[in-house]
């Protein structure tokens, strides 16, 4: 039984040394570059360049340190699905925060479905409703 196990071809893959060393040097250079750029005031470009460098560093880390360059598509898809859900979480939350106080140009009042909801009066009626629902 044991010998049968050893005969099965293994999916082990050794990441070529030139990629790992190259990635190490690139990541260190990019980290230092990020610091240098942050020392200058480039206005809006500061954050654009910063995110650009972060994304390149993250990609290099995943491709050559985590070995996704040679990984099976299914595994890559599964790992990246985490980032997809994070993007959904982030984009919906930020769109809410950004446009919460935006004005509807037709109604000349803030947008928001909150206006359609009739607030419950405080006090007796509220407690009565709660009792009924129970």
């Amino acid at each position, binding site marked *: 039984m044991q010998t049968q196990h050893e005969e*099965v071809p293994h999916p082990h893959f050794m990441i070529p040394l030139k990629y790992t060393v190259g990635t190490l040097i690139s990541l260190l250079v990019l980290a230092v570059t990020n610091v240098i750029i*942050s020392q200058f005031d480039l206005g809006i470009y500061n954050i654009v360049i910063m995110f650009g460098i972060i994304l390149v560093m993250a990609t290099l880390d995943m491709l050559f340190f985590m070995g996704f360059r040679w990984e099976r598509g299914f595994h890559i898809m*599964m790992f990246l699905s985490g980032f997809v859900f994070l993007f959904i979480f982030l984009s919906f939350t930020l769109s809410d925060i950004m446009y919460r106080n935006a004005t509807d140009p037709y109604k000349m009042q803030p947008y928001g479905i909150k206006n359609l909801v009739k607030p419950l009066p405080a006090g007796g009626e509220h407690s009565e409703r709660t009792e009924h629902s129970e």
Partner: protein
Amino acid sequence: MDSATGIKQHHVAHHFSSSAQEFEAAKLGTLVFLVTEVLFFGGLFVGYAILRMMYPAMFVEAASHLSWQLGLLNTIFLITSAFTMIMSVRSAQLNKRQACFYFLLITFLLAACFMGVKAIEYAQKFEHGLLPAMWFSGEGVAETLPLFFGLYFAMTGLHGIHIIVGMGLLIWLMIRTRRGEFYSGYFTPLEMVGLYWHVVDLVWIFLFPLLYLIR
């Protein structure tokens, strides 16, 4: 155990048909776990995005209270440790047991250096009263400064916990390497801890500029 090489042969668990299947199953499980880790940190990053949008000027002031020099030093420690982690896996794949052990040891020491720098940073923050919420007693222009330090301690603290867990795993790997359990035919735990370590590294790649390099 082979007395000449000191290698202890790995036996595939009975519920797997082959070592390849065993390895794939371990990888699948590890990646699923790492997705939950991404989402775990993701909540904090979303919190960060909201607060930064609401108080951009406060974040610029807050970043001036952090030392980018120490942050960069930690980045160098962590990126180098990710490299030595890969080298330990590679050494096991080449049946170089000693090299594998020493690369793991270097990774562990770099992680310890990271935590040492973090301890210095935390001590400075405590000294200056730059703490979250009601514990804040530092000096600053922005009233909302405690919000930043709430995020700072939550994000770097959670990341630090992951480093400590990683250090524990590295000790476990070093013991197993000494016993000769890893060789070209079996190095699954090394590879999986390596993946975990790279995700911890990945989180820091985002954390460092987002906290220390705000302008």
